[in-house]
């Protein structure tokens, strides 16, 4: 138990060390793929493929001024989205995994009282990531997986209805190339328990067009995970995650004051392992602390469901060889 507590503190320190850069800020007009917050972040073993399909529902309706709810606006507004993401990851070697994900918004809707409803839909961003198995000790159940990645704004960013361009908040794509680096640290305890920490940084490239020059604030994410195998095929994961964004900028020198946030999420997750390496996950993102610069629409809750199929090609080959041997005998 002492070891467990000391590892927990080490992971806490790791997470906190990512926040050594002072006060963080963020932006209001978040667009593009949402952060997929499940606990499946480590690099894969060699010749292992995972294919996942995720559905996520998000709902927000509360404006925040700093860390307080703001209810004095002369209207009510609600933003919600239905989002799907396909994710493929493959362990090229024992030390490198390539992962790609493609997001699709079934709808991204903003409803304001006494006003028309805005509704965007379509492809979001395409993510490409390389994960590295930098340190892996099977006996100690300890691994460190750094990763680098880029997001391509392949989706829709100039969607129009009746020749009127929709506001940026409901455009499916972020319209901006994003570059990210992350590290995932995992430590298992016994057969049923594990702790993990995740930290990432994302830099958004400035969007420049004839009438639009905008840069999303940089995004920092830090999370700690507590995983417990309750039954043989049933896992419970509890996660605390801090998402922080710097302020956005418009033009080259103008900072957007009503942008930037710091939100702490609590994310409970359950994962069920099914036969033939199928996995079902369900989790919720529940904001437990929110700080927004100036006055902004804040994050609400999100519900996600994920189905994953894992294929171990080395095991498959071994099974195939064994079958061939049996037939030959």
């Amino acid at each position, binding site marked *: 138990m002492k070891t467990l507590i000391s590892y927990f503190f080490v992971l806490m320190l790791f997470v906190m060390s990512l926040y050594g850069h002072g006060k963080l800020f963020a*932006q*209001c*007009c978040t667009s593009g793929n949402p952060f997929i917050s499940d606990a499946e972040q480590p690099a894969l073993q060699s010749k292992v493929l995972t294919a996942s399909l995720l559905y996520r529902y998000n709902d927000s309706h509360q404006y925040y001024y700093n860390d307080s709810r703001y209810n004095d*606006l*002369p*209207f009510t507004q609600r933003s919600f989205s239905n989002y799907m993401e396909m994710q493929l990851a493959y362990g*090229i*070697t024992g030390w*490198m995994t*390539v992962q790609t994900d493609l997001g699709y918004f079934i709808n991204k809707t903003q409803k304001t009282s006494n*006003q*028309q409803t*805005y509704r965007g839909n379509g492809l979001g961003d395409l993510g*490409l990531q*390389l994960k590295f198995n930098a340190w892996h000790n099977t006996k100690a159940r300890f691994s460190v997986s750094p990763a680098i990645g*880029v997001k*391509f704004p392949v989706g829709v*960013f100039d969607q*129009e*209805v*009746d*020749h*009127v*361009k929709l*506001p*940026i908040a409901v455009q499916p794509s972020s*319209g901006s*190339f994003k*570059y990210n680096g992350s590290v995932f640290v995992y430590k298992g305890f016994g057969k049923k328990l594990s702790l993990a920490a995740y930290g990432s940084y994302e830099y958004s*490239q400035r*969007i*420049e*067009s*004839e*009438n*639009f020059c*905008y840069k999303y604030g940089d995004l920092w994410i830090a999370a700690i995970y507590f995983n417990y195998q309750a039954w043989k095929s049933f896992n419970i994961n509890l996660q605390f995650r801090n998402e922080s964004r710097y302020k956005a900028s*418009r033009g080259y020198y*103008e900072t*957007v*004051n*009503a*942008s930037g946030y710091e939100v702490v999420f609590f994310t409970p997750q359950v994962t069920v392992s099914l036969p033939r390496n199928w996995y079902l996950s369900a989790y919720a993102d529940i904001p437990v602390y929110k700080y927004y610069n*100036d*006055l*902004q629409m804040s994050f609400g809750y999100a519900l996600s469901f994920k189905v994953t199929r894992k294929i171990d090609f080395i095991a498959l080959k071994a099974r195939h060889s064994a079958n061939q041997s049996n037939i030959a005998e």
Partner: protein
Amino acid sequence: MRDTLITVLFLSALIISFSCQKKDQSRPTGDITILSLIATLNPVKAWDTTLITVTATGSNLQYGWEADHGSIVGSGQVVKYAAGECCVGLNTITCRVFNDTGEVSDTIKIRVTSYFWP
């Protein structure tokens, strides 16, 4: 060999993405002329609305609208413009007037002031 190929592809993607920029494109004009593009209220406080009207000459005209920050409500020759606290500053609204023969566009700058300190 395969590892090297993947790494090279990934780095190439990074380089290409740094070199790409979005560019607006517009077609040449036909017989359309924009006579005026005006707003009833300018500056406008965050979340208040202002009416923007375009007057143009030409036949079978259609109108397209785009705001760099904020929202356009409605469509056609007259639209409403509103922007939240996130869009405080000098914003550009672009109006595109077009028909089968071509299109022209014009912009109007609208200053959005803070909801708390208008």
